[in-house]
């Protein structure tokens, strides 16, 4: 039973994770700074999921990346590409609409 709930929850969250990550990459971030930003916003994400996700998004050309070697430790910075910005806008609108519909439906269900 709890396994089922867990897997349903994961499934429910999976799509939103991409949106959350895209939303935080308006300015360049490296892996761990992104984790911290997400955690500040109370979005907890498995780190073993996040880093591979970043690479996939880069491969899909939603993100660009750059190695910064000026500091004592080299860091890979990710940020939205133009295409990524466009996609993010559309996903955001989609999410807001879905959330609104779902909220009104769920609240309607409670009041009945």
């Amino acid at each position, binding site marked *: 039973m709890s396994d089922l709930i867990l897997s349903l929850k994961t499934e429910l969250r999976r799509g939103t994770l991409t949106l959350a990550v895209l939303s935080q990459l308006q300015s360049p971030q*490296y892996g761990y700074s992104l984790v911290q930003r997400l955690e500040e916003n109370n979005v907890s994400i498995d780190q073993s999921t996040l880093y*591979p996700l970043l*690479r996939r998004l880069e491969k899909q050309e939603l993100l660009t990346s750059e190695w910064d070697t000026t500091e004592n*430790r*080299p860091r890979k910075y990710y940020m939205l590409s133009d295409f990524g910005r466009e996609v993010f806008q559309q996903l955001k609108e989609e999410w807001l609409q879905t959330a609104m519909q779902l909220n009104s439906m769920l609240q309607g269900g409670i009041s009945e």
Partner: protein
Amino acid sequence: MNLIESYISEVTRRLPKKMREDIELELRSTIEDMLPDDFTDEDVKNVLMKLGDPANMANEYHAKLRYIIGPLFYETYINVLIVAATFSVVINCIVLFVNGIFTFDGETSLFTYIGGLLLKILLSSLNNLAYVFFWVTIVFTFLEHAGVSTEKVYTKRKPWTPDELVELQKVKQHRQIPKCEVFFSLFWTVLWATILLNASDLLGWYEQTGKGLEGLRLETQLFNGDVLLMYAPYLILLILIEVGLAIYKFFIARWTKQLAYLNMLYHFFSVVLLLVMLNDSALFNEKFIKIMTTSFKTNLSWLTVTIAGFMILASILDIVSGFNKARKAPFEINQIIKH
């Protein structure tokens, strides 16, 4: 420091070579980011615990390669597997059974002989299944990972409409090919092939030398073995065509124009081959013909003509019935089945 390096190598050794270097650098800098300035082994362990099982991490990195056969090919894969497995087992069983019956030597008791034969059939069927599973899986794995797309196939198809259901009912009523028909035709192929291939032991003039069936001895053979051997390539080709046609029938399970044409070609080939063989006087054993003529006191040519006539008539009927069945469906359905 050691723990960090071995964690990284645990991840990267599971990854394709060209990804390794970059991921290694990134992981190292991330781990160092997560650690406080003066860290202890305990801190390292905590950080690595947060990152989780390196195998999991590596899996996430190449999520695309985690399956052998993906959802796009899965259905086709299972279908092909079922058809191939069914056919290999059925053909294998029929061949071994017919062969077993004809090569029964009468020395062992029938009961033990059949038992042995069944065991042989079972074992070689299992063997066949393993082969089929192996090769079909190999081919589909290749298709999956070579990036062959079935999308093209799907987009060629017209969008679905409820009218297709009406057509489907028509197909079921008039044009379906029952599975038993396919298996019967396979049985028939194996039967004549076995008899012809064992012709030197089976076909000919029998003399009663003792009592009952066991007293029958093959006195004179029907064919000249050497000449029959020259026909072997054509006969094998005919066998292949018959088996191929049966598999095709099984797969599409209904008559189509294409199938009707293929059926016609098959009949042409088999009738022509039969006529050539019947006309080849070198093929038949002279002694056998002499015995036949003296025994029945007639010329044998009427027999040849009758056999040829029957075969031609049966072929024509089958060709016509094939086209008839194919015609009962409108053109579009043929298109759909093709894809």
